[in-house]
């Protein structure tokens, strides 16, 4: 496969993954300005739940995916109710510190229960391997990933644009005070959105295992990428997250393939330049 298209394809798949993991954080940050750095811990939770179901209980991969979503969503609801809501008016720094503390605890917990080795996972036969089409070679799993992410993205956009719930979300992100004034139950809305976003992260985490591997440091390593996507894309913007995730996914893959000496270098530089040009993100509010 000519490297260019291969890199593009792989980059797209990676970008889709990043999108799934980031979109929840972008919307909740835009809506409540709550900096939840533990977002990727939910992704990691989804991943470990999937692994446990598959390896210890014999479930199939596809059956485990919805459970990953639900588990992460549930965990986020519990944390939000019990914990986070007291800090909605705290400073950025306090929220960062609080949620980083949770990240550390989650990493330690993962190491305790699962050890520090990478978790093995066996994809079902129909998701393995690759096939040729019009002279190009496509990995089945990456196709599956892109397909799934696209379906979810479309569902998200449709929900946002056509349903009443979506309209309320858009209003709350745009101007929280006014949305409350209009009688929208912003707190309840946020709880639902938060659960949804965390669930998507959990799903993304489960899907990521095959692509990037799973070990306890996952919650932290991917946090940085997710933060890049969210800050570059613009808080509260689904299209922003999508665009930024694509740019990031493709640049990172391209960088690693064409200029391995630059390594991760490239995306950090891209991020710095993009943020300097548009500090509130590509699609953020000015």
């Amino acid at each position: 496969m000519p490297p260019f298209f291969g890199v593009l394809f792989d980059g797209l798949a990676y970008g889709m993954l990043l999108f799934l993991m980031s979109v929840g954080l972008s919307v909740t940050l835009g809506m409540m300005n709550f900096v939840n750095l533990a977002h990727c811990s939910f992704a990691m939770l989804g991943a470990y739940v999937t692994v446990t179901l598959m390896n210890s209980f014999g479930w199939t991969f596809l059956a485990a995916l919805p459970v990953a979503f639900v588990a992460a969503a549930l965990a986020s609801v519990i944390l939000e109710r019990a914990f986070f809501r007291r800090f909605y008016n705290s400073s950025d720094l306090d929220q960062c510190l609080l949620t980083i503390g949770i990240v550390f605890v989650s990493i330690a917990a993962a190491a305790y229960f699962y050890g520090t080795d990478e978790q093995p996972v066996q994809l079902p036969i129909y998701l393995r391997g690759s096939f040729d089409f019009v002279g190009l070679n496509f990995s089945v799993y990456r196709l599956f990933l892109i397909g799934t992410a696209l379906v979810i993205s479309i569902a998200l956009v449709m929900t946002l644009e056509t349903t009443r719930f979506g309209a309320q979300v858009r209003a709350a992100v745009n101007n929280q005070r006014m949305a409350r004034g209009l009688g929208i139950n912003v707190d309840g809305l946020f709880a639902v959105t938060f659960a949804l976003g965390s669930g998507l992260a959990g799903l993304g985490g489960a899907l990521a295992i095959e692509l990037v591997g799973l070990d306890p440091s996952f919650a932290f390593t991917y946090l940085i990428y997710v933060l890049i996507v969210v800050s570059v894309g613009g808080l509260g913007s689904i299209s922003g997250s999508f665009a930024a995730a694509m740019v990031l996914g493709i640049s990172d893959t391209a960088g690693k393939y064409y200029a391995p000496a630059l390594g991760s270098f490239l995306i950090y530089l891209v991020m710095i330049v993009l943020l300097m040009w548009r500090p509130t993100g590509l699609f953020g509010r000015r």
Partner: protein
Amino acid sequence: MTTQTLAGSHDVLRAQIRWRWSEVAFWLATLLPFVLAPNYLVLASQVAITALFVLSFDLILGFSGIVSLGHAAYFGTGAYTAGLLSVWGWGEPLSGLAIAALAAGLFGYLTSFIVARFRHLALIMITLGIGLVIEEVANHASWLTGGFDGLQGIHTWPLFNTFRFDLYGYTAYSYALVVLFLIFLVARRLIHSPFGLALRGIRENGQRMPAIGAPTRAHIRTIYTIAAIIAGIAGAMLAQTTETVSLESLGFQRSADVLVMLILGGTGRLYGGLVGTIVYMVARDQFSGLNPQYWYFWIGLLLIAVVMLLPNGILGGLTLLARRLGMKP
């Protein structure tokens, strides 16, 4: 206690900057390791060096409100500069310190132009990005930095041609402690100067500052450069006393640790950073046998506890306690 007279106001302000007995006691206590724990002088010197680094971070985070996740870049620059000087044949400590300070300061000055222009999430991400970029550059320029293995062949000449840096750590701790104290005096003066007041103004309400005619960006550039110089000095001392420099000196881990130590001790108090460093590093040394995962478990709980219960860190808690007991801290 309020005063209406003009002279009274001057007295109140002067009283605020007087040396308290607790401060004097603190600095006298730093001499104790020589007597009470001579086997731990190497650790003590590392604590002093890290405390200097945390002090520099307090100047930008605690006093000016600049949230940076990449401050280790300047520490590492100082470390590598001093290390390289030694590797290339010049191991004199004090001049090495000066040159490293210059290098870190220059780097800080250049990046300050970027940092001063941004706030909130963009600032956090940009400082994080700068730190990560520097780490990657250092990693890939292994011909210069030794890459993953670090710099080899550092040998620090005796201080003033008499005091050798040895395994016992007398020289190392004396050196680090004196430098820390001298720079602390400078920082203390800065905090109590008009510039210090301006920095607190920026922290309290950055939006209002231009409305009273303040050149906010210029102020931020100044303090950021000063903080970079101090961080560079700390890094240089690390290179000189341990005779090693590795990538972790400018890694994200170090930037994150300095944040934890400052928050633990309490921001915006100068002494908070020092106390936080002592507690953190002594604890880490005691639990060094522990699996690193478990160490971060406790640090995680600690962060959560500090945010929920002790928002101003240890010193904040102690101040509250002292007030309740009727003492003046």
